[in-house]
């Protein structure tokens, strides 16, 4: 479906324009104005993204809302954008989270407000661009550009060790993407001068180059997901990032890696993907099992959730490389649900951190006595993080485990251990923080969540429960595209 109205472009550029407007408000004297412009911009960004969902045709796997204009003809690069069932939900997720982080930072961020708010808006637009790009150069531009605002967000508003974390984040991601750039240039050469991703899907590639291209893609996306053993930047970045940064990082930026696998690695190099699938699956299972155990040992709440993110994203890569519908759809559902749950978990930690300025589990205890409403929300999200049936966390993991049973019992067995470790690390943390006697005078002085915080957590709770009880709208949207992808991947391209 291609309408005359450039809806998708608007979804990409509107937040960026508002972001620039927020920057233009200048220093902190205009902080109030900056906040309001940011809120209006992010809400508008979300509202105009809604027609993308309502106008989406779930019966086809073809690209929808496409737009294509020549960008620079010298290299045959086009401004070519469009969405299918895989990218559309991710764009909606991103547009949904932008107002969330703007509201979350509303009172907390007091320094350089316009830069903070502006960076999030610009990032939102850039990430939409990544999901919508159908041209490899356009994709790469958005992909790399998304590093810049996040680098600044971690580095400027982060914790004590923020510089190390920001530079590590930037360089790790850049390493992967630069190799991907070489792979894309190689594809441009072999395809006879095209940067269209859809052309690459049809391009036959001999086995040896396919392996190399796959490895280049794999490095780029595995760093972003992040998979074991290139995950070490994530805990550092999360711990040091401000709450809003952590939320966007976990909820949105990690999904870029997963999306990359579905858009690039699997369809462009299907034979290499099949050939190396067992390796990827083993790495994913290590993430699920081993990182789960590491999470158990953490004393810092944010670090714990960061490691649990790595473990949950292990399910995503596991699902992709099972090459069956349960696996891939389950992995997609897991991506969306992890977005809501990890976002909510980081917001909860942020609520505590704003009051006590500590992320150490040991500094808390007995919070339920002082913050009952907060404890209830945190309970729900902790349960969802542990994969309790009825929450969205269960659906994705269950589908991926179903998918892996079809391949091998042991894959499924190892993956299923997460239901135990996940529950252990999440609930143990919950117990130590929330229950027990009031641990210190600081905890004694805690006040329960404000209306603003209540509103944020309530909205997220609704989505976590909704997709847990009734995931059909989600799977329906992606069904046609996933089927098409599976068909495509099962055919050799040699």
């Amino acid at each position: 479906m291609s309408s005359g109205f450039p809806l998708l472009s608007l979804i990409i550029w509107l937040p960026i324009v508002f972001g620039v407007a927020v920057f233009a408000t200048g220093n902190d004297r205009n902080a109030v104005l900056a906040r309001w412009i940011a809120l209006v911009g992010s809400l508008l960004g979300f509202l105009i993204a809604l027609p993308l969902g309502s106008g989406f045709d779930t019966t086809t796997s073809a690209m929808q809302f496409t737009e294509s204009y020549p960008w620079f003809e010298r290299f045959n690069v086009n401004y070519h954008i469009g969405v299918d069932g895989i990218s559309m939900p991710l764009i909606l997720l991103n547009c949904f989270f932008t107002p969330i982080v703007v509201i979350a930072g509303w009172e907390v961020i007091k320094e350089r407000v316009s830069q903070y708010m502006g960076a999030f808006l610009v990032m939102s637009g850039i990430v939409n661009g990544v999901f919508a790009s159908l041209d490899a150069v356009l994709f790469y531009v958005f992909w790399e550009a998304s590093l810049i605002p996040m680098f600044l967000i971690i580095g400027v508003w982060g914790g004590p060790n923020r510089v190390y974390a920001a530079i590590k984040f930037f360089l790790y991601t850049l390493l992967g993407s630069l190799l991907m750039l070489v792979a894309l240039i190689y594809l441009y050469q072999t395809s006879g001068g095209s940067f269209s991703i859809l052309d690459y899907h049809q391009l036959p590639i001999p086995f040896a180059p396919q392996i190399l291209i796959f490895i280049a893609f794999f490095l780029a996306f595995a760093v972003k997901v992040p998979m074991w053993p290139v995950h070490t930047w994530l805990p550092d970045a999360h711990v040091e990032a401000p709450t809003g940064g952590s939320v966007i990082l976990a909820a949105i930026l990690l999904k870029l890696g997963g999306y990359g696998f579905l858009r690039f690695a699997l369809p462009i190099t299907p034979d290499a993907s099949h050939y190396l699938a067992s390796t990827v699956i083993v790495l994913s299972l290590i993430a699920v099992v081993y990182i789960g155990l590491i999470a158990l040992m953490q004393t810092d709440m944010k670090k714990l959730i960061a490691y649990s993110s790595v473990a949950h994203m292990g399910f995503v890569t596991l699902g992709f490389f099972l090459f069956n519908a349960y696996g891939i759809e389950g992995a997609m559902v897991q991506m969306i649900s992890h977005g809501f749950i990890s976002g909510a978990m980081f917001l909860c930690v942020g609520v505590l951190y704003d009051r006590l300025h500590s992320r150490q589990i040991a500094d808390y205890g007995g919070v339920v006595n002082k913050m009952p409403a907060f404890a209830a929300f945190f309970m729900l999200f902790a349960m969802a993080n542990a994969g309790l049936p009825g929450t969205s966390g269960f659906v994705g993991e269950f589908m991926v485990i179903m998918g892996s049973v079809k391949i091998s019992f042991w894959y499924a067995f190892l993956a299923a251990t997460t239901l135990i470790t996940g529950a252990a690390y999440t609930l143990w943390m919950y117990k130590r923080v929330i229950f027990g006697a009031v641990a210190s005078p600081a905890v004694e002085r805690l006040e329960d969540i404000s209306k603003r915080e209540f509103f944020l957590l309530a909205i997220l709770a609704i989505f976590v429960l909704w997709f847990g009880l009734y995931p059909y709208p989600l799977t329906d949207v992606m069904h046609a595209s996933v089927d098409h992808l599976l068909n495509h991947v099962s055919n050799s391209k040699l």
Partner: protein
Amino acid sequence: MNFIPPDFAPASSEIFILIMVCVVMLADLGAGESRRYVAYLLTQMALLGCAVLTFLSFSTDVSQTFSGMFVDDAMADILKLMVYGTVAAVLIYSHSYIEDRGMLRGEFFSLVLFATLGMMVMISASHFLTLYIGLELLSLSLYALVALRRDSVVATEAAMKFFVLGALASGFLLYGMSMVYGATGTLHVTQLAQIIQSEASSKEVLVVGLVFIVAGISFKLSAAPFHMWAPDVYEGSPTAVTLFIGSAPKLAAFGFVMRLLIEGLGEMVADWQGMLIILAVMSMAVGNIAAIAQTNIKRMLAYSTISHMGFVLLGFISADSNGYSSALFYVFAYVLMTLGSFAVIMLLCRFGYEAENIEDFKGLSKRNAWYAFVTLLLMLSLAGIPPMIGFYAKLAVLQAVVNAGYIELAIVAVLLSLIGAFYYLRIIKLMYFDDPETSEPILPNSDVKILLSANGFAVLLLGIFPQALMGLSLYAIQNSM
């Protein structure tokens, strides 16, 4: 025997600038201490006049004059226009810097104009002798510029180093040229190509000559392992002069390489390709790795220049118009970024204070958010992050390299530029993550303010819309002789 006067028209802008050099010197003599700006304004007018002359004479025809020693083609015109723009920007940026340091004198401007003339001759030369004359005119003016603050020990040392090594490089170049002359019997660029093609020359002697020529070129481009002078000269020179050395001469050097290696010795591509590969990889490695250890911003940018020149050489390796045009695009992008970066350094200098350490960037975003943002754009562009122009420059070169079948080279190049990203990020870190050590306000003149903002925007906008500049680069290459 009739004397037929040569056709002066193709060289009109060179002749004009030579007249203007004399006018500037005389006017400055008469203007006296209080009216130093006269020389400045006259210099800018000279550049503007040259631009008009070059623009009016712009055509796709190739016209040769002075017995074929001088050529005027579209590539020369485009390169010259870029040189004028760059020199004009250098003067605007450095105006208040040199005024504060007592260098605002006629000598400065006449030397800059002489250097510009040298560059123009290099770009338009089609004979080894004219090439050499242009190169020496440029080099000697630069030596003098570096030494202009004669009571500064550092500057004098830098000038000595620059002069000795530069003279050595010129010696190499001349020796190589004499070998080539011995093998072929001609110094005309066009005839040379024909003679080598007809294989009427001794291959061995030619190759030996080529080695010396490539070594000489590498000196001038500051490509490793002939890069040693660059960090010392960059550090020792007054920043305004560093800016000049680091920017416009690279455009001329590009023209020089085109005339010498591609148009003259293009038939020997198989021989120089291998040399350039080694030079390119070494430059990128040495430049990027050594830059990490620098605490002096000018030294750091010198090493960054070395690594960028490695990338430019990479563009030549593919030996087709695609590769050459990407190298030209790269040079232009590099010049744009260098101009901006040094302008910011001069902005941080105050009266009696030289900003030289990377620590001087500390907390720039709190001192002045706008210039910090411009510097952010410049640094990201130098690191090759999209959507800045530096990314497209790298993309174009890498594409040409992969096209020529050197995919391993492309991988080495991206890995080395990953190392490079680190030290640009460090500047961003200092600007944005650290607190300022001084609260001294940054107060540039309004012309610097406008130009620097435009420079920053150009880095971004030419990155988002690179089509026109890429087309121009290709056009220039396709319409060279």
